[in-house]
Structures are given as structure tokens and as C-alpha cells.
């Protein structure tokens, strides 16, 4: 993947497939600690411990269209390549979470990339799922919650309407620029 935001898009697709109704995404850019940490958690179907223990192996997949599942193993490798770390936890029937920490100044770290576009794409994928997106840059933080958007839109308008998706994307993009103070 050329951007970390594309890994996030892919990882959230797993949560969607797992039947989650709420997905939480936390991006923490901490320059002082030299870490970029990405956490994604969901309340989907989860995995049993036997499956989980081997899930970063590409040959572990419940996919039927091909024999390998690449998403998690690629995300893990990308983080570890920078000297960072990766962890995943899950409970059957409860949900799944994973965290990838990238060494911020590693030359092997991909750019974070366009998180606003990733968010509008996952909302579009299933507009009935709620997303909480928290992005910190050093000590500045902003939070986006689709439940607040729904309150404004009411029941007639789906989050998947092109105008709404575009507004969400621009909104998140502006907020990220604000917290980063033009640093990206």
C-alpha cells in the first residue's frame, strides 16, 4: 500500500464484513515520542482464540475468492518494517481490535495519506454503521462521530448521499489540517 490510510481503509473493510455496527478509528501522531499509532476496533463477530493466534499468517482467511488473506499481514509488516509494533485482540461475539505503531521518522514509513478520503469511503461502504474517528497530532485532537451527523440529517437522508459524503470528507480534511497546523 502506498499510504497508511489505505491500510486503514482495508482493515475497516474487515470490520464491516464482521457485521460491526460501531467502528472506532484512532490516529495518534506523536512526534515527541516518534510514533504514529493507528488503532481500529469494532463490535463485530470477533474470532476465536485459535483463529486469532494465527490470523497474521496470510494463509489464514475465511475468504472464498482466493486462498490468501493479505490485509492484516500487510499492515503488520508495514509497521514492523519501520521498527514499530503490531498487536491484535479479539473475542468471539464481542469484537476485534488492532493497533499498529509506526516509527514516525523511519524512512520506511509510508505517509499517513488521505484519511478524509478513507473515512468517506468506509462510510459509503455501509452508511448504517457508526464511526468514531479521533485524530491527534501531538497535543491537538479532533473527533468525528457519525452519530452526530445523523442527528442533523434526520432519517430521510442517508450518509451515502454524494453531497453528504463530500461534506464529510471536506470537513475531516479541514479538521486534520487544523490540528496539524499545516505540518502535513
Amino acid at each position: 500500500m502506498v499510504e497508511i490510510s489505505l491500510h486503514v481503509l482495508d482493515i475497516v473493510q474487515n470490520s464491516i464484513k464482521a457485521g460491526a455496527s460501531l467502528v472506532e478509528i484512532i490516529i495518534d501522531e506523536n512526534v515527541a515520542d516518534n510514533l504514529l499509532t493507528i488503532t481500529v476496533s469494532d463490535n463485530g463477530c470477533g474470532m476465536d482464540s485459535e483463529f486469532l493466534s494465527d490470523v497474521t499468517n496470510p494463509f489464514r482467511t475465511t475468504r472464498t475468492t482466493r486462498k490468501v488473506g493479505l490485509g492484516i499481514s500487510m499492515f503488520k509488516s508495514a509497521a514492523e518494517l519501520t521498527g514499530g509494533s503490531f498487536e491484535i485482540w479479539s473475542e468471539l461475539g464481542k469484537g476485534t481490535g488492532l493497533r499498529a505503531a509506526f516509527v514516525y521518522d523511519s524512512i520506511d514509513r509510508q505517509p499517513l495519506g488521505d484519511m478524509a478520503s478513507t473515512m468517506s469511503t468506509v462510510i459509503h461502504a455501509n452508511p448504517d454503521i457508526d464511526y468514531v474517528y479521533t485524530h491527534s497530532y501531538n497535543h491537538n485532537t479532533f473527533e468525528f462521530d457519525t452519530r452526530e451527523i445523523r442527528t442533523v440529517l434526520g432519517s430521510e437522508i442517508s450518509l451515502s448521499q454524494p453531497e453528504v459524503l463530500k461534506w464529510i470528507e471536506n470537513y475531516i480534511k479541514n479538521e486534520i489540517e487544523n490540528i496539524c497546523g499545516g505540518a502535513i
Partner: protein
Amino acid sequence: MKSLAELEQIRKQTLAKVNLRKEDDDSIRVVVGMATCGIAAGARPVMKAIMDEIEKRNISNCYVTQTGCIGLCRLEPIVEVYLPGSEKITYVKMDADKAAKIVNETIVNGKVVNEYTIGAAKEN
């Protein structure tokens, strides 16, 4: 969250259009592959180009959705178009420019762009 007032404006504007966008037999369906293989090959900018073009041209009879891996990973990004009353058109190896072109040719004018179809890709 601030600027929710702006969203309220969008709500009012969109409400008028929503009724026109009711899914029915005449609507065109567009499906973009969004599994790992598609995403790695560039499906996100393809999706964005399609959505932008639909918004820009104010197209109201078209639905865009996402799907997982359809098992043709080396031909991703893949976009399938279902025109009412005709067979599915499968476009392969898409990029943002090609995607904008199929919105204009296929979705607006109902014409197949042969060079981007899976049939053309398999001949090579």
C-alpha cells in the same frame, strides 16, 4: 462538532434531490471492488472520481456501491456497471481518469467503452 450549520444547509439541499434518487428499475447501478487487492491497485481514487463526477453532473438515477474481492485480483481496480435491461459491463484496470470517462460515456450516454472492458483485457 462545529460547522454543523453548514451540514444543515446540505440537508435541505439534498432533501429535494433524494426523492429523485429513489432506487427503481430504471436506475443504474455501479459497483466498485474494495477488497485488499482493489484498494492496493487504486480503487479509492477510482471511487472518488466516480462520486465526484456524479455530484458535478448532478446525476440522479445512479447508485454506487462497493463489493469485496471477486477473484480477478490482477485486473483490479474493477468497476461493474448495470444498465437497466442490459447485461453487466465489467471494466478492469481502472484509474481516476478512466472512471470519469465511463461516468460520461456509459452512465450518461449508455455507451460501452470497449477498450476498458474485461473482454478487451483478456484479448491481450
